C-alpha cells in the first residue's frame, strides 16, 4: 500500500487533490481511498487530506500516520503544523515553494527525505489564473514518484471538472510534470558529473 498525506489550507483544494489522486489511481485499475481530516471548515485553516493506493481492497480507515509521500501545498505550515510526523525515511516530500530548502529551514532534513520544490502556485496562476496549487502539485507528484501517470492525473481532472477549468488545470499539471522531470534530469546529470 502506498500512502499519501496532503497538507494545506482551506481554499487550496487539499481535499480535492486527494480525491483527484484517488480517481487517477482508480483509472489505472488500482484500489484507492481518499478522505479528509476536517477541522474547522474555514478558508485559511490548516487542512489535511489522505490518499491510499493499493492493488487490493483497502479496509483501513485510520488517518495516514506513516505516509510514503507528503505534499505540502502551503510552506507556511512547515513551522506551524507537525507535517513531518510519522513520515518514513526516503519518503517523497513535495513542497509548493519558490524558495530553497535552506531558506525554508529544512536543511537538516534533506538527507532523510526525497525533497522536491515546485512553484505550484505560480504555475497555477500562469495556467489557470487562480492561486490553487493542487493540480500542479499532482503533476509534480506524478513526476517525482512515478506512482501515477500524468495521463491519469489529467483524466481525473477532466472527470471532476469540465471545460476551461479542466483544461487550464491539466495545463498546470503538465507544466509541473515537465518542470520536475527537468529538475530530476539535471540532478542525474550532476550526479553523473
Amino acid at each position, binding site marked *: 500500500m502506498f500512502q499519501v498525506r496532503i497538507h494545506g489550507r482551506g481554499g487550496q483544494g487539499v481535499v480535492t487533490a486527494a*480525491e483527484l489522486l484517488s*480517481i487517477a*489511481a482508480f483509472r489505472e485499475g488500482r*484500489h*484507492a*481511498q481518499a*478522505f*479528509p481530516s476536517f477541522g474547522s471548515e474555514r478558508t485559511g485553516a490548516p487542512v489535511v487530506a489522505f490518499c491510499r493506493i493499493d492493488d487490493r481492497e483497502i*479496509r483501513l480507515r485510520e*488517518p495516514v500516520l506513516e505516509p510514503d509521500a507528503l505534499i505540502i501545498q502551503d510552506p507556511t505550515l512547515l513551522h506551524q503544523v507537525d507535517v513531518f510526523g510519522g513520515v518514513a525515511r526516503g519518503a517523497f516530500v513535495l513542497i509548493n515553494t519558490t524558495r530553497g530548502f535552506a531558506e525554508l529551514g529544512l536543511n537538516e532534513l534533506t538527507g532523510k527525505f526525497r525533497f522536491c520544490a515546485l512553484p505550484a502556485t505560480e504555475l497555477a496562476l500562469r495556467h489557470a489564473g487562480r492561486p490553487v496549487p493542487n493540480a500542479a502539485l499532482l503533476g509534480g507528484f506524478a513526476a517525482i514518484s512515478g506512482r501515477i501517470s500524468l495521463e491519469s492525473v489529467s483524466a481525473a481532472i477532466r472527470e471532476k471538472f469540465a471545460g476551461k477549468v479542466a483544461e487550464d488545470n491539466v495545463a498546470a499539471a503538465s507544466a509541473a510534470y515537465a518542470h520536475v522531470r527537468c529538475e530530476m534530469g539535471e540532478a542525474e546529470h550532476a550526479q553523473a558529473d
Partner: protein
Amino acid sequence: MLKQTEGSHAVAEAVALCRPEVICAYPISPQTHIVEGLGEMVKSGALARCEFINVESEFAAMSVAIGASAAGARAYTATASQGLLFMAEAVFNASGLGLPIVMTVANRAIGAPINIWNDHSDSMSQRDCGWIQLFAETNQEALDLHIQAFRLGEELSLPVMVCMDGFILTHAYERVDVPTQAQVDTYLPPFDPRQILDPSEPVSIGAMVGPEAFTEVRYLAHAKQMRALELIPGWAEEFRAVFGRESGGLLHAYRTEDADTVVVALGSVLGTIKDTVDEMRRGGAKIGVLGITCFRPWPLAAVRSALAHARRVVVIEKSLAVGLGGIVSSNVRTSFAGNAGAVHAVIAGLGGRPITRASLARVFGEAMAGKLEPLTFLDLDRALVERALARERGQRRSGPIAENILRDVGVVAARVG
C-alpha cells in the same frame, strides 16, 4: 458500473435508482452532500417523477416524509446528529404508524459540547424508536443497504434507518459498483402500500389508543421486527442473486471459526479491525471479528450462534450510555451464553477520535491476556481527566468542563476570556 466516487454521491445515486417520489431534507453536516446530490438530480430531471421539498427543520423533514408515505409515496430523507434529535418525536411516529420511510443517518456525535465529527451517538439515541437500523461497513454496503432498505421497509411496512459513518464514509472517495436501473427494478418492485390515505376511501391513521389496546399495538410492532429478523437474510440472498455481491443481512463473521476472542463492532471501523486481526493472526492469535449489520431488530439468535465458541468478546463501540457504559455490549451480553464478564466494552472513536490499528492491537492483546477491564475508553488521556477532577475537587466553581479541558490541551481558539 465501477466508479471512484464520494460515499455521499454513491448513496444519492442509489436512492435515485430506487425511484423515490418525495425527498424532503434539511441540511446538516455530514449528511449534506447526499441531499445536495439528490436535489441536483431532481432539478436536472435525471430523477423524474420526484418532488424535492425544502423544509424549515428536521422535524418538518420527518413530518413531510410521514405525510408523503401515508399518501402512498415512496419517501426518503437524511439527517445526522442534532438533526435526528430534533425530529425524534416524528421518528417514533413514523414507526408507530408503520410507514416505510427510508432515512440515511450520516453518523455524527451529539452535543454538548458541540462536535461535528463521527461517532454513533445519534443513531444509538434512537435505537428503541421502532425503526429498523442497518449499519454500513463500506460505501459499497451503504449504497446496497439503501436498495435493500426500501424493499424490506415496504414489505413489512416499517421505516428503515441506514447508518453510515459521517466523514469516514460520507466524505471518502472509494470504488463502488453502481447498479443499473434494470437491476434495481428487478429487486425493488413499485411501492404497494399496506395502508394509504385516499380521499375516495377515507380512513384515519394515527388513532388514539388507550390502555385497552396499547400493549397489543406495541406487541405487534415488536412482532413485526421479529419477523424482519427472519426475512432479512433471505432478502440479502436475493440481493446477491440480482447484484452478484454479498451485502446486508444480519451479521458478517470474519475468521471466527476457531477464534477464542471475537471482536464485535458496527460500521466502518470493521475494516481497521479486520486489518488488525489479520496482523495478530500472523502472530498466532486466535481472534476473529463479528460485524453487526442489523442492529435493530437485534439479531439475538444469530449473534448467540456466532459467539458460541468464543471465550471472550471485545465490543468496540462508538457511543456511550453515560452512567452505564457500552450500548452495543449490553446488547451483546444478552446474546452471550458464557459469563457476562467475558464481554468487554471498549468505547472508541467518540467525536471523531481516530481508531488506530496500534490502539486496537493493544486493547485486543490486553483482552487475550485477561487484563482488560469490563469497560475501557480507548486512548483516554488519563492525565487530562485527572487535572479536571483535581480542579473540581479544589474549587466549587471551577468553570465549564469542556472549556477548561480545551485550555489544558492548548487549543488556542477556545480561549475566550
